[in-house]
């Protein structure tokens, strides 16, 4: 008895062609040697001047719940990548003080040197999320440019063992820049019969004509002065000149502030509003200052050559004065054409 034997071979080489493509996925993964990549992270420098002692505020975000015992922050001038040898930055964090922490708790500075800070605590579960630490007394690198930070978190309390999370930072040190300008000493002063508004360019008239003088009534007139200055000690306005003169004959000036009396020989001025007689007005404008002693009493007039008639104690915006003039003559005043030239001088006291 015999049988034809049919044998099915199962050895691999024969089966190979019978196997339709088997999809084998090559698994591409990042190396787990450095832990997971930290989420959002940044270092805010309060003062980024080279060499400045300042505050660093560090924020880092973990992406999963994990037992966390320490965080290492290392500052390097060459790269934020932990696998590349670190060239320490020229800054110095050896004297930092941990001021605040949020999003976590229990950390203190476990160890520190010129370019590395290790925050430590008793390992505890840290929920995924952002943590922020503020360090005082961090000293920036000494030159302008970019430097880097390397962040690693650990389950241990002394940054030993494999990191849980890793991430890099980049920061910039930058010189400040200066904005500058100059304000020159400033004095605006003008005189005229009238000055519209506060515009010296519009002032007009420099001749006052009292007309025929009479013993029965006070002759009046007025002119205006405009002043503004940034002088720290304010301004003064002086008047110089003589009283009304005709040859050898003078209308005597009032040497003290006095009322105007028709029939008496008088020449005087003031810088206020009057009603006896009705002439002049008080100072106007946004500036400061006022009539000086003897020139600020209503209905009283005087004239002293070289005297200060108005002043301020500090810088003043526009200030417009109206000068009131009065002339009275007695029956004994010699006839003639009387004239006077008055010079007003504004001085900024810088």
């Amino acid at each position: 008895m015999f049988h034809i034997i049919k044998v099915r071979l199962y050895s691999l080489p024969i089966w190979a062609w019978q196997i339709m493509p088997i999809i084998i996925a090559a698994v591409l993964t990042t190396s787990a040697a450095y832990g997971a990549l930290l989420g959002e992270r940044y270092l805010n420098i309060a003062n980024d001047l080279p060499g400045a002692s300042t505050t660093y505020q560090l924020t880092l975000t973990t992406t999963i719940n994990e037992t966390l015992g320490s965080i290492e922050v290392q500052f390097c001038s060459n790269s934020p990548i932990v696998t590349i040898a670190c060239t320490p930055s020229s800054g110095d964090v050896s004297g930092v003080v941990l001021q605040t922490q949020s999003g976590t708790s229990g950390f203190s500075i476990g160890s520190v040197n010129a370019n590395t800070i290790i925050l430590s605590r008793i390992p505890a579960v840290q929920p995924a999320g952002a943590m922020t630490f503020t360090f005082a007394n961090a000293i920036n690198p000494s030159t302008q440019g970019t430097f880097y930070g390397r962040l690693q978190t650990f389950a241990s309390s002394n940054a030993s063992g494999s990191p849980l999370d890793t991430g890099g930072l980049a920061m910039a040190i930058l010189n400040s820049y200066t904005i500058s300008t100059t304000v020159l000493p400033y004095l605006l002063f003008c005189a005229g019969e009238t000055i519209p508004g506060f515009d010296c360019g519009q002032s007009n008239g420099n001749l006052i004509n009292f007309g025929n003088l009479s013993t029965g009534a006070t002759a009046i007139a007025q002119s205006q002065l405009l002043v503004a200055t940034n002088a720290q000690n304010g301004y003064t306005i002086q008047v110089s000149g003589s009283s009304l003169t005709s040859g050898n004959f003078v209308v005597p000036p009032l040497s003290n502030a006095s009322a105007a009396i028709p029939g008496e020989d008088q020449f005087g001025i003031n810088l206020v509003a009057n009603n006896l007689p009705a002439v002049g007005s008080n100072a106007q404008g946004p500036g400061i200052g006022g009539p000086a002693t003897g020139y600020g009493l209503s209905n009283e007039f005087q004239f002293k050559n070289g005297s200060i008639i108005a002043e301020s104690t500090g810088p003043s915006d526009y200030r417009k004065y109206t000068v009131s003039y009065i002339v009275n003559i007695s029956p004994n005043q010699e006839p003639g054409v009387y004239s006077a030239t008055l010079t007003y001088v504004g001085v900024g006291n810088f």
Partner: protein
Amino acid sequence: MNKQKNKRVSSVLSGALATFMLLTGIAPILLGSQTVYAAELEPRYINMSDSTAGKAGVTYGVNFTTATAGVIEEVIVDFCNESGGSGGPIVGTTCTAPTGLSVANGGTVTATGVTGLNAGTWTAGDINGTTTFTLSNTSATTSVAAGTAVSFNITSMVNPTAEGTFYARVYTYAAPNTTYTATAPGSYTDDGGDALSTNATIDVTATVQETLTFCVYTGASCNATATSAAVPLGNQIGTSGIYVIDSSAVYTGAVNFTVSTNAINGGTIYLYGGTLTSGTNTIPALTTAGSITAGTADFGLYLSTLGTNVTASGGYGTATTAYYLNTAGGALAAISGPVNASVSTITYGVTASNTTVPGVYTASHQLVATPKF
């Protein structure tokens, strides 16, 4: 099924006997045990969604084409190692399950995407301690034609823990086989073997480091070696280098900053610094955004140009009606994402009043860039 197999055996035997009778004198053919095989499922293959050794939650896509027409109420997939020429895909031999392999990730066997078999509810299960997969439907009583492409996904696989090749034996049954063992698979309709492999992972690393370039300048371009930029305000007196302001106009000057970073979360540009100061005298800063009017002493700035991905923030504006200065320091601009050489311009404005005390006025300003990676 067994009758069919027996028929085949009988016809083989008959054929052999007839041959012998006709050809006398021919040496007898080797005697030995006879083995009868069902038809092969062909083509057939199993896709692995992930070949990482030990990986859980992997999907095996089982695909085959029926060779024999008939009712299929169960499919069994048995996973085995090969050893010494036995086991592996060889039907009827001892099956040693690959270490670590399971068809029941997390204790549950699941299968999806059943096509080619009868419609209805197919139940996934396991036997042999979760190393053998079963897919059954006792209501699948309609015959499946030969040459029908069948596929389903076992979504609850756990890969063997060792790297290397392992095998699967695939059987179709007209009725659920409740007594299946590897050495006694019972009466199946068709069968086939597949080879699978777990591999070591391929680690690919590529690192792009965090970057930041930040520069402040007043010239035509960023000069990294410049010690400090300077922004004079006013009209220059001749060529004296002295710039003068007064109450008659608003005077302006500008400084640029350039930022490049790959920070995916953008960042913030901060401005620190006070107002123009000369000794104890200052030109007041505009602490509420607004216009500067000639003759009303004020000092402020606005962002007259915004670079790519840069927007004004912290109360700063982008027009001459929005001069402003936060003398306590704070955000000036926001960066919305990675940028390359994004150039922005800060324009400063100032005017003096009639009472601004004379002097040289200066302010030192700093920009701080904080990228968020």
